[in-house]
């Protein structure tokens, strides 16, 4: 009946603040700006959806927050990335490592390439857990089983002994999500996590994201090219094009009274279908 | 074209040797068969800057003529074995089935023999001369091309543009030559470059063992072998042909490495 606006009466402090992010790549001896003055806030327990067509810079934005962009393409990066008040921009790669995976979880689009093909799911989960938390191997295995159960993996005890190629696409993405969740991150960054999945599995995984966020009280940065998926999952939305922020708004406002022509155009494309 | 200076250096060395080989009859300061027994084993001088060998022949002139044998054997063997190997690999990879199985088992068997021993055996049976060296090294050489090409064809033939070509109604032969081959050419060229180096070493080894060029012919391997007997009193007789072999083989390997880097799709992103 009423619009489902998220419960946000007080004004909490954002857990992640990105301010004037500029990312410049080096392409054949030329400096090419990829991200131009992007700023956004991610609040606790909320989902910020970033949507845009391919080449809009949405994935680069996600990777920039993790500082995961390699220096050959990257020329320089300026601005502020404040995670719980700490500016990640000033941290070295070495200082970032304890944060990646532990505080900031990351989920890739294609789990087949993001999971190591020669290790079992169990090995990868246990390694991830023991990397960040001081637990025995035994405890790590128990934790792995409960994580896989939490993400809805069928027969977790048995499936965890499989290699990635032995799992279906949906199970692989569940395993990937379990890895991202393994150290209870406060922020989960998901880059097109359902794009490689079939529509029935996509629906299941979106449902899973909603449940997990509810139970774990996480913040979610959700990247997608598909506005319909964003409509299903996001509280706030940022529309990107050519590395620029075209429009940011509450999801209800964005879908029902978009301001910018480009947003209306994108919405027109999904309504046409 | 050349990304690293080593590739460039390799190409220049090869060009110098190739020019020396082609124009040896005109450029060489002396006749490579002109024996001056009185001057045998003389050390490098201003007139003979690499010295003279056991028969008093000018080593520099012999090296220039020897380059003709080494380089032409290298190039000819790679051209013939490459053509055979590429054809076999294309057909085998494209059609699969039992011809493929038979061919690949044959390749496995040939690969299981130590190459040089097999070449020695073949040349011994056929008789020691340059033509038989070429034959023996070709018999060994096509295998690596066939295996490489077959593997490449297996991956390329599943690409959609090959399927699109098949749905245009053209013949299999045309698909292999016009559509598949250009897409696997890069690794083949790299392989060919390394193969030339390998063949030059093999030819030198056979000649060193007296199984290559007939005695007296200027050949690097044979020169090395002749120098071996006098290595203590006249080391220059073996050092210069040894250096020549080393330089050429190294140059081809530099070129091969450079080409491989260049053809690597990841290196074009820059």
């Amino acid at each position, binding site marked *: 009946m009423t619009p489902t606006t998220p419960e946000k009466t007080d004004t909490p402090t954002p857990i992640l603040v990105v301010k004037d992010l500029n990312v410049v790549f080096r392409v054949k001896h030329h400096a090419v700006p990829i991200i131009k003055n992007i700023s956004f806030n991610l609040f606790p327990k909320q989902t910020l959806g970033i949507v845009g067509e391919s080449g809009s810079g949405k994935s680069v934005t996600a990777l920039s927050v993790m500082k995961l962009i390699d220096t050959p393409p990257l020329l320089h990066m300026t601005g502020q990335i404040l995670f719980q008040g700490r500016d990640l921009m000033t941290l070295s790669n070495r200082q970032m490592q304890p944060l990646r995976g532990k505080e900031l979880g990351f989920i890739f689009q294609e789990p087949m390439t993001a999971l190591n093909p020669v290790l079992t799911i169990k090995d990868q989960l246990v390694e991830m857990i023991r990397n960040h938390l001081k637990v025995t191997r035994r405890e790590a295995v128990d934790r792995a089983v409960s994580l896989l159960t939490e993400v809805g993996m069928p027969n977790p005890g048995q499936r965890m002994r499989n290699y990635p190629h032995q799992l279906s696409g949906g199970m692989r993405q569940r395993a990937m999500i379990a890895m991202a969740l393994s150290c209870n991150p406060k922020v989960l960054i998901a880059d097109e996590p359902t794009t490689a999945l079939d529509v029935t599995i996509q629906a299941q995984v979106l449902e899973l994201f909603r449940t997990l966020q509810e139970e774990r009280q996480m913040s979610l940065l959700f990247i997608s090219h598909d506005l319909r998926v964003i409509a299903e999952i996001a509280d706030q939305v940022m529309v990107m094009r050519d590395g620029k922020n075209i429009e940011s708004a509450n999801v209800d406002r964005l879908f029902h009274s978009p301001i910018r022509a480009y947003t209306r155009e994108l919405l027109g494309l999904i309504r046409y*279908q | 074209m050349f990304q690293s200076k080593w590739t460039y250096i390799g190409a220049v060395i090869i060009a110098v040797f190739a020019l020396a080989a082609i124009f040896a009859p005109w450029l060489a300061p002396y006749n490579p068969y002109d024996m001056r027994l009185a001057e045998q084993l003389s050390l490098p001088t201003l007139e003979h800057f690499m010295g003279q060998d056991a028969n008093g022949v000018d080593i520099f002139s012999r090296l220039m003529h020897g380059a003709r044998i080494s380089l032409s054997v290298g190039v000819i063997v790679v051209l013939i074995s490459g053509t055979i190997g590429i054809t076999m690999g294309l057909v085998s990879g494209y059609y699969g089935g039992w011809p493929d199985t038979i061919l690949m088992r044959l390749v496995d068997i040939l690969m299981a023999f130590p190459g040089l021993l097999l070449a020695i055996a073949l040349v011994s049976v056929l008789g020691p001369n340059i033509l038989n060296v070429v034959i023996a090294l070709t018999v060994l050489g096509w295998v690596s091309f066939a295996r490489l090409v077959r593997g490449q064809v297996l991956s390329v033939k599943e690409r959609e543009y090959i399927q699109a070509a098949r749905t245009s109604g053209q013949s299999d032969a045309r698909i292999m030559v016009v559509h598949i081959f250009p897409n696997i050419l890069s690794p083949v060229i790299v392989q060919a470059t390394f193969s030339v180096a390998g063949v030059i070493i093999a030819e030198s080894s056979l000649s060193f063992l007296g199984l290559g060029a007939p005695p007296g012919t200027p050949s690097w391997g044979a020169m090395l072998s002749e120098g071996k007997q006098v290595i203590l009193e006249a080391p220059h007789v073996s050092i210069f042909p040894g250096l020549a072999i080393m330089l050429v083989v190294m140059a081809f390997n530099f070129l091969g490495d450079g080409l491989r880097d260049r053809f690597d799709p990841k290196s074009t992103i820059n």
Partner: protein
Amino acid sequence: MMISENILECTDIIKHFPVRGGIWRKGRNRIHVLNGISLTIHKGEIMGLAGESGCGKSTLAKAIVNLSPPSAGQILYNGRRVSLDSAREKKRFYKDVQMIFQDPFASLNPRHKVGGIIGEMLRIHGASPADTENAVLLALKDVGLDSSALDKYPHEFSGGQRQRVAIARALVNHPKLLIADEPVSSLDLATQHRIIELLKSLKSRYDLTVLFISHDLNLIADFCDRTAVMYMGSICELISADQLLTHGRHPYVRALIDSIPISDPRMRMKKRTLVSGEVPIAGDLPTGCAFHPRCPHRFDPCDVHTPRLRSLTADAHQVACHLY
């Protein structure tokens, strides 16, 4: 005289691949990809073929164009069995039947120029250089590209433009039947929209019959006349495309429709019933109805008897489900 002639009739198409399960089981196991597909395409229609990845829709397309001939079953093109034994038969068949592939980055030979890629189609059939050039330019113009494309390589184009080149290649010989295998699914939405509009206009200009394969039910509903939905190598429903989203009856088809994200955040909480589980990993075909392990409505006969396609109404709506 029939009103609509059948341009293509597939009967009981079966396709299986042998699995190499180690030394001991060699040749024993087979993955069944198509389990007896029968499908008729009428001249002039756009037939949709929907289903999720691995359901066999691309395999069926490849069986029809003989890229991967079926293990059993019969394919009739214009009432005649397709045989491509001689070079002549091959040329004649592929002049009439053409295919567009999913990934325009993979379907164009990276070493050939666009002019050569399209022109080759004509030269194979013996066209003169002058005729070839004219026809290529005409085809390029029809897909919205100009003569500057001729001397460019595929990598110089965007995804949408490459797909236009692929369409020009498929249409340059004026085929009768066009098989489009997910032709827009690798493109951005806006580009998808433009390519679909292009295909609509070319369909009438070239007087085409189209088999349009897609996982996107919205796209099928918009573009096609009729559609078949496949699940694990069988057709589970055959329905006119404009009724698909509203009148689809098979539980799997309903699940597909309900899984489509709704583009309105206000509707988010009105959650539909989602099917649980996933398609079994290759080879493990369930007994009875292939969908029964995931089906919310399964009852007695489902795990024993395989349901056959049955007409629901007088029109061509057919469903393979024991519920109906």
